[in-house]
């Protein structure tokens, strides 16, 4: 059970039950759909960027497992108010965290609250769940194409 408790931390379960920013954005400046054909997870991410490229507001909708829902929810909280350059940097840090070697100490530098996803490292099958919303956000601000993880 310990690895599972590590994966399904209280914060993750809370965001799964009550996802933050779970709403459509009107108006939005960028949006994209993301899906994982393997497990059927679907997410739509909408963003409103300011003229200088700061995330003014962000919302998501869709359905998925606890890991993907909580990841999307916590992502919206983490990126709101941040310039795009910081958002991309955070995604890189987050990606490194969930794909790092589980036998080594996780590098939590700069990931902030997203550290609760360190447990995903033990479950390589779930990395796609944790990163789906992030890939979708990236698509939204870059080219608006559908993001796929599988």
């Amino acid at each position, binding site marked *: *059970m310990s*690895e*599972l*408790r590590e*994966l*399904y931390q209280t914060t993750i*379960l809370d965001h799964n*039950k009550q996802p933050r920013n779970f709403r459509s954005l009107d108006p939005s400046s960028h949006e994209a759909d993301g899906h994982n054909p*393997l*497990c*059927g*997870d679907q997410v739509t991410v909408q963003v409103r960027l300011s003229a200088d490229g700061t995330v003014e507001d962000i919302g998501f909708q869709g*359905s*998925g*497992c*606890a*890991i993907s*829902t909580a990841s999307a929810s916590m992502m919206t909280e983490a990126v709101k108010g941040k310039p795009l350059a910081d958002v991309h940097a955070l995604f890189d840090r987050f990606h490194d965290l969930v794909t790092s070697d589980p036998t080594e100490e996780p590098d939590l530098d700069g990931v902030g609250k997203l550290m609760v996803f360190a447990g995903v490292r033990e*479950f390589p*099958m*779930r990395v796609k*769940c944790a990163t789906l919303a992030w890939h979708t956000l990236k698509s939204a601000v870059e080219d608006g194409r559908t993001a796929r993880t599988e």
Partner: protein
Amino acid sequence: MSFDPALVRKDFPIFQTTMRGKPLTYLDTAASAQKPQAVIDAISRFYANDYANIHRGVYELSATATRLHEQAREKVRAFLGAAESREIIFVRNATEAINLVAWTYGRSQVNEGDEVVVTALEHHANLVPWQMLCKEKNATLRIAPVDASGTLDLEAFAGLLGDRTRIVACTHVSNAIGTHVPVEEITRLAHAKGIPVLIDGAQAAPRFVVDVQAIDADFYAFSGHKLYGPTGIGAVYVRGEILDEMPPYQTGGGMIERVTFEETTFAPPPERFEAGTPDIAGAIGLGAAIDYLEAIGLDRIERHEAELLAYGTECLEAIPEVRIIGTAARKTGVLSFVVDGVHPHDVGTILDGEGVAVRAGHHCAQPLMNLFQVPATARASLGIYNDREDIDRLAAALHKCVELFH
């Protein structure tokens, strides 16, 4: 008489390993069955002692390999109750079996304005090839509906059969929800209108006696890997009279009679449908799997799995947060379910943490999932090595799952 799954488990080396430090509780046989030592040995013995390419070899080793390959075909014939071994065509798996029928027989028979009938229970493998064929031919695909329990509506099915129906394709047992379809009734209704029937037997063949003549099937498809045999091998039974009319599938070596630069004549069935060097070791491994299952007895396997399915149903029904998807009166081998408030993938991960292997997803039956208004389910499926303790471990792990999320 029943048999002892604990003894059966000793025949399967995989059960000597542990998962996350716990004994392996393997409840994913509907996806693929584990392999008994007898199958593994038959394959390595063949590669070590008897390997050569089959057909036309003038030397003894090739003759031996050919004999072993054809013995495997004979075993499949007897296993399915077919009249002649030429009615057994080796393919990669049930998916290729159905594609072979769709793209040879189907393509030659289905024309613009014609219809193909499948059921709402089909695996994508018995849906997408027909959908593609109908698109290519400007034909119409009709779907026989199921009721809320996942039982096929036979009256509605019969109503779909018309003058333009060229083929019926129907599963024997639903891989996603376990519904056991009365295929004898399907062939009776279709044959009354002169329509041939393909049965997808991927889930049925490993679970009970299949007799293609008693069923009166025109085509019967199955996969070796779900039958405790190797991956990469399967077979399709094609009724003799149809076989002779069917155009070739893939073309090339091994399936010809005579070739010039201008013209080719084809070998008789089954070789006509087996272009290129086949999976010789796979066929021999499949033969060994059939020997293994027949030594246990398909009747006993059927009774064992029925008893276990009833027990599993009872255990899952006792958990208030669990809802079983697919409650047909006649089910075989498969328990699909959802846990209130927990996504099936989280269920799968939590069960994995307890050493319990189930599948979570749409089970290659997305339209069926849509009918039940679930994106996915968790699915526990049974095999000859499972026993009540496996079900108990599943139930205990589900309790943990509920506890964690509520």
